[in-house]
């Protein structure tokens, strides 16, 4: 469902992402792990079409993002790490705006908006301006916006930031549910317990390059730590010695 081929991004002489190639299968959750500054957000911003790669190609649901960006973006939902939304719109107005941008039919949009607002406990806040929402509510509304047009691909960047334990638990359950229904979730995080709990497959990026990719068992086999958790393997793989 998501294919990255030799993806690179440079800013002058600095290479933020170097020759990243990944294959994410349809359905399921793919965790994209890395330390701060490893290149996770840059990769995600390229997959969502916000940044243009220096070289390489990106395919979403079979559409080439560079050659056919509108088709590729139409099947994608994106939850950023910081929920910067329009503060002067109400929650419902914002979701209507997103539905119109993604050309959801008006009848379906109304029904779907009601559904997602209910699901993320925002119904009673739907007519309030977003500027009056708490950080967690904004994060939940951003999630609603990413899901309201029923995307086939969901790109998520640090989803648990700002959520209370209830919100975090609900979101994790929701991700599992979407994955079971066939949505492909590309989840970037440095919360290793979240990745361990949710991910079917994962990749670790370090200093712009992919260190390893596969299932948790594949990585265990690679590191030879058959009884260790993800945190231990991650720290070993991304330690300064490996980086050098």
């Amino acid at each position, binding site marked *: 469902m998501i294919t990255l081929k030799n993806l690179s991004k440079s800013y002058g002489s600095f290479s933020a992402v170097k020759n990243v190639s990944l294959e994410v299968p349809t359905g399921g959750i793919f965790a994209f792990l890395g330390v701060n500054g490893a290149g996770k957000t840059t990769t995600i911003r390229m997959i969502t079409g916000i940044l*243009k790669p220096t070289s390489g190609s990106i395919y979403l649901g079979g559409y080439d993002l560079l050659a056919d960006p509108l088709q590729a973006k139409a099947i994608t939902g994106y939850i950023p790490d910081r929920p910067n939304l329009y503060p002067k719109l109400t929650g419902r107005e914002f979701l209507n*705006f997103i539905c119109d*941008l993604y050309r959801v039919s008006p009848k379906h949009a109304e029904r779907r908006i009601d559904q997602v607002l209910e699901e993320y406990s925002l119904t009673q806040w739907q007519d309030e*301006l977003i500027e009056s929402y708490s950080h967690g509510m904004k994060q939940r509304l951003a999630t609603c916006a990413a899901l309201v047009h029923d995307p086939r691909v969901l790109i998520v960047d640090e989803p648990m930031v700002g959520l209370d334990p209830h919100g975090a638990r609900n979101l994790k359950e929701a991700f599992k549910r979407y994955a079971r229904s066939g949505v492909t979730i590309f989840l970037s995080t440095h919360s290793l317990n979240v990745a361990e709990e949710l991910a079917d497959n994962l990749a670790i990026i370090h200093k712009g390059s992919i260190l390893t990719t596969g299932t948790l068992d594949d990585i265990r086999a690679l590191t030879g730590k058959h009884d260790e958790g993800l945190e231990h393997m991650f720290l070993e793989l991304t330690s300064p010695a490996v980086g050098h």
Partner: protein
Amino acid sequence: MSIHPVLLQPRLLTIKNRWVRRGSRSMKEPIGLILSAGLMYAIYASTLSTLHDAKRLLPHVAIDPTLPLSVMLAALSLMIFLSAAVAAIGSLFLSKDLDLVTSAPISPREFLFAKTCEVGLSVSWMICVFGLPGLLAFGAFYDAGLLFIVTAPLLCLSFFAIAVSLGMITALVFASLIPSERGQPVLISLFLVAVASFLAFMTGGAWPNSLPTENPIHSITHLTSFATNLWLPTSHCAHAITALMKGELVVPCLAALESIGALSILGLIMRIAFTHLYDRGLSRTHQTRRFFKIHSRTAHKLSRLLLPFSSASTRAIMAKEYKVFSRDLTHTVQLGLLLGMTFLYLYNYQVLRGPANVSEDVLAIWQIFLLLSNIALGSLVVTSICSRFVFPSVSLEGQSFWLLQAAPLSTHDILRAKRKSWSIPVSCIGGVIFISGAMALDADIPLVLASCAAGIIICQGLVGLSIGLGAFFSQFEWEHSTQISTSFGSFIFMITSMIVLSLTMVPLGCMFGTYLLFPETHATPDTEILVLGVGLLCTYVVNKAVSWWALSTGAKALQPK
């Protein structure tokens, strides 16, 4: 009193970093600098040449520089006051650094002084670009020495600080009186006042015509003489500069003392206003309770009804623009001030209608001049509206711009939707200004209609230009939204729009000239339509080309990098 370095340092470092670490925007600053240097030279050269022409035409009349200097200073201080008031609302109440600054151990006095300096700095380019060259041209014409070059700008600086202080006081009072949730009712009230004033203007009931109209020169002199009123600081400053040109020192010293005195009094008033009104204004600005309850479902259905011929995505962007605009208090302030200026302009404009007891030819030339200047001045008003509201619209997406970038829309689609959003209101405002101006001049009905059509075409061009350049000079990481309208990009937009307006005046001048100087050209309806049609078509081509170029440039600049 010292400027607290912590408060002003980020601003100064931002300016420095823009030059030192230019990166992908490497050419924008140098191009802007070259354009502004060109404009400064043009203002200097044209002022000097006008003064030399006047001397050649009237060799036995000593030209007193006080009147033109007063008018120049008055216009500039009005611009500075308006910009400072808007920038002050942003800087004092909406800036993103407020949490950091107010929680830091900084005294209210230091905070106020630093914010005043910040506002002053943000409007200082107007003084440098528009004021300084004019002043130096006067100095060169009257052979004023080095003393003038050094002291006149300093004198003006204290004078313009008065406008900045007034802007700060206005912002403090306004924010404490009108809470942010009242923005929409205030906007509706402003709209109703504008409609009522327009109706009164059209019926002529509320617009006494007691000013002289026999001689156009008298009319212009009468109109501009307000700036020389003795009670105005403009007049004092102009007299002082005139005295400096002659090498006198007493009058300038007295004027400088007066300015400093006025500034001290205003500083005291500002301090008192800050002490008593700031906290109240800050809490009111950040109040999120709404005066009117928002019914999101109804609003969405209404937008579908009101914008039926647009695609869903265009309609979404248009509806979003209108909602965000009507809920932003800073926009309401700016709109109120601009509407006030527009009516002042329309009220004064009617004194210039056709002079009595002159030959047909002279009357025709005077009418051509008036019709063209109506369009030119009306376009300048529209340019101000565009630079305040339309130019910032791309940058105002701010950190929410990712939503549009990630959506299935091209950058062209985004800009086209934005242009469409603003074309309608700006054309309505422009149409009213142009038609009212032409009617105030007692022009023939075909000319009134042609003026209105030309005005609407110009509005379309200016909206396209401002959206395109707004995208080209977009800055999504602003401290407060009012920074964008006083930014360097906005200034470049104003210069470019002046150039476009000059180009547009050529076909319009030919059209009005042919119509009024050669009556046989509109002897039959066919020839009348031909003359006006060709003129309007050429105007349309110029504006369409400008709009297309600007939107393409802007879309290119916004593409993912």
